[in-house]
């Protein structure tokens, strides 16, 4: 019994154990409990199966979507709402003249738009913009009010978030709009009828920089301009567009706050310091305009170069456009008029070309200053008779007199003495028919016909010698004659960029030599000859107190039916002071009407400019300089 009891006395927790006792009959579980367990298990299993099926369906759907034809559309929709594309443009670099005067900078303008859901009264917005933006040609038209209203209204209907309403709004115009906006906010709360309460709510703006030229038209021809798209057009702006504009960056900015995109640090555009002297540029433009007015010319060019380095100190050309209002381009430049005649217009230069013919002949040793030529009034070259400008015979002439009297016959004879091969080799060495490499956009190469070309004839040798039958640009003439003017025989590449400011450093390239077509002795001899010839002719180009060398040029203009005597190109090239040349000036007046002769219309332009140049460049008169050096 004790044993039995001992066997029966067990902890309470073990009452329902399944271990069968040897002497105790097995206590079986009730049937209803088993049934309940089976029922619960069935329900759990069913639930599990349902969950499994649901999960499988989701997975199948996900896989199906990945390979469905609509996948691309879903992805693009997701991208559309998950990120936005922003284009960051760094500020455009500034352009300065050689003394640090700002020629091209930046000014604030605003883009104006409407956040449509905040717009309370489209009518007021349309009215305000049509009244305030009257200074903009693109917004100053009768239907602008209706257009603005329609844009906002359609945006409201189509649930568009933002619409742009105007661009290039000035700070003054924005101030005016802000004043209007504040006034509307302070209006009393009364019934405004069908029109509704006036409000400019919903208008937003964003500032950005726009190109600005504080000197307006001054230097416009070499500066060029920047269009609405921010691209440089013509001149320095086009030539150095990549450097000035910097590197714009396009970035997709995620709207997910977990994927904040870093805004890149934009590398600003490089600043440029030009070789141009603002004061000399202004003087050149004034003198050119006066010369054109006095001569009745169609247009003209005045170039000022430092012949020692090739630095362009001034580059004046007509017509001129205010680059701040570049949209007037078509009105200013009619009939394919080049933006900058100095580099883009080629013409037959006439007798100024004789400087180079004589330089070649002297350098080749074909003639000396004392070589005598008996001018009979005509010379037969390649089947044509060449005559002097006055159709006269000048008799025995040395080379200096040939230049002084600008005798076509004499120079044609010089060229024939040289023969075609050497003559054209020299002309090619002077850079004709090729680009000078000046750092300005839209340069023309001109045309130099040479033996072997289908359109070259032997007569060309005679006419080319005095600057006809050859097409050159003023900048080519300046580069070629720099070899004579600097006294070294080295031809300097003309350039307008003095230095480049980038990454906190100022880089100044060394002036480049294009070549050395003539010797220093030839250059000195020819300079002396041209100086003496100017003085012997009492030229209008002479400047009191300063010895200068120079040559006039008058060229008939070629037409489809031959050369016309009704219109000429009048030119003058000169340089000085002779002891230490500091400037080389080139003048071209197109179709002057008061007189066809370069000596009458172009030489005074040179004189007037040099009188101002010597003051602006601090060049003492020769006598003063000699006196000071003797002290």
């Amino acid at each position, binding site marked *: 019994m004790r044993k039995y009891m001992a066997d029966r006395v067990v902890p309470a*927790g*073990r009452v*329902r*154990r*399944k271990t069968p006792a040897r002497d105790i009959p097995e206590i079986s579980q009730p049937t209803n409990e088993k049934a309940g367990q089976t029922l619960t298990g069935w329900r759990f299993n069913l639930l599990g199966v349902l969950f499994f099926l649901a999960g499988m369906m989701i997975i199948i759907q996900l896989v199906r979507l990945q390979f469905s034809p609509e996948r691309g559309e879903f992805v693009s929709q997701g991208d559309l709402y998950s990120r936005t594309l*922003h284009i960051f443009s760094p500020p455009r670099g500034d352009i*300065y003249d*050689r*003394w*640090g*005067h*700002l020629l091209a*900078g*930046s*000014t*604030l303008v605003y883009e104006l*738009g409407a*956040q449509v859901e905040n717009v309370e009264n489209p009518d007021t917005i349309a009215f305000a913009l049509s009244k305030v933006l009257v200074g903009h040609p693109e917004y100053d038209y009768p239907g602008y009010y209706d257009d603005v209203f329609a844009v906002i209204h359609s945006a409201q209907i189509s649930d568009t978030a*933002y619409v742009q309403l105007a661009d290039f709004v000035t700070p003054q115009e924005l101030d005016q*709009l*802000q004043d209007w*906006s504040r006034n509307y906010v302070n209006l009393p709360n009364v019934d405004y009828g069908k029109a509704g309460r006036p409000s*400019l709510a919903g*208008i*937003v*703006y*964003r*500032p*950005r*920089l726009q190109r*600005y030229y*504080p*000197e*307006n038209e*001054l230097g416009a021809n070499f500066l060029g301009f920047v269009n609405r798209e921010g691209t440089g057009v013509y001149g320095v702006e086009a030539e150095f567009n990549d450097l000035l504009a910097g590197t714009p960056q396009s970035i997709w*900015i995620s*709207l997910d*706050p*977990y*994927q*904040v995109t870093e*805004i890149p640090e934009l590398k600003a555009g490089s*600043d440029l*310091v030009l070789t141009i002297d603002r004061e000399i540029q202004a003087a050149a433009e004034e003198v050119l305009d006066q010369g054109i007015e006095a001569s009745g010319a169609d247009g003209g060019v005045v170039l000022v170069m430092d012949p020692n380095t090739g630095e362009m100190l001034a580059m004046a050309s007509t017509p001129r456009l205010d680059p701040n209002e570049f949209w007037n381009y078509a009105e200013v430049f009619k009939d394919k008029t080049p933006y900058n005649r100095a580099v883009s217009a080629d013409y037959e230069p006439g007798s100024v070309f004789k400087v180079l013919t004589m330089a070649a002949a002297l350098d080749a040793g074909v003639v000396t200053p004392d070589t005598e030529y008996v001018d009979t009034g005509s010379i037969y070259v390649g089947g044509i008779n060449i005559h002097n400008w006055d159709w006269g015979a000048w008799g025995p002439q040395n080379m200096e007199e040939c230049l002084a009297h600008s005798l076509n016959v004499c120079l044609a004879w010089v060229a024939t003495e040289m023969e075609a091969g050497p003559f054209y080799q020299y002309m090619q060495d002077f850079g004709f028919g090729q680009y000078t490499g000046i750092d300005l956009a839209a340069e023309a190469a001109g045309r130099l016909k040479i033996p072997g070309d289908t359109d070259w004839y032997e007569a060309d040798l005679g006419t080319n010698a005095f600057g006809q039958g050859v097409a050159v640009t003023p900048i080519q003439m300046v580069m070629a004659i720099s070899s004579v003017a600097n006294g070294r025989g080295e031809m300097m590449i003309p350039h307008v960029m*003095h230095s480049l*400011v980038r990454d*906190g*450093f*100022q*880089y*100044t390239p060394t002036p480049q030599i294009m070549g050395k077509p003539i010797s220093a002795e030839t250059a000195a001899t020819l300079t002396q000859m041209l100086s003496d010839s100017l003085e012997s002719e009492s030229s209008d180009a002479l400047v009191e107190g300063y010895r200068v060398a120079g040559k006039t040029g008058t060229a008939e203009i070629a037409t489809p039916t031959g050369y016309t005597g009704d219109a000429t190109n009048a030119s003058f090239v000169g340089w000085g002071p002779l002891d230490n040349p500091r400037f080389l000036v080139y003048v071209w007046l197109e179709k002057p009407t008061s007189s066809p002769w370069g000596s009458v219309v172009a030489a005074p332009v040179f004189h007037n400019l040099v*009188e101002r140049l*010597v*003051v602006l460049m*601090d060049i*003492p*008169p020769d006598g003063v*300089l000699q006196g*000071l050096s003797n*002290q």
Partner: protein
Amino acid sequence: MENLHQITHAYSQAPWRKQMYMIGVILLVLVSAAIIAGIYLNVTARAAAAGRQIQEMQVRIYGYHNLTADASGSSLPIEELEQRIANLTSQLAFLTSYQVMQERIKELDLEPIEVTNIEYLQVPGYVDRQTTSLAPPPEPVVVNASGIAPEFKESLFDWIAEQVRITARYFSEAKP
């Protein structure tokens, strides 16, 4: 062995222990998951808040301003300040432009000087006007000879002598 069997048997046959065990495990998993979720939520919430702040700042810099907002506030982003500086620089350039200066010259009744009115003096040490300098020139690249490894410039005898010197120094330092 019998005891172990009994214990195992005893525990395996106690459903409440099994339930307690399962509940404990589930609770442990749940609590762990809750802790991890809490930490995760905390971190991600802070990251999201920081992200939103950055986005707001970016919008303030590059986004649109309300017409009624005060644009002359003191908390302008650097980019906008630079834009204003560029604008002021251009305005200053206009005020000192050639055309405006000519008008001021006329107002002051000044005349451009003629070459005949200039008196020239010799000034010892006078430096001519220099072209503008907006920034220093780039530093010249100097090849430092000391930066060249000895292997590229010493002779074989130099190398042997150096090795001997190093070895001698090593033994001298090793002395007590």
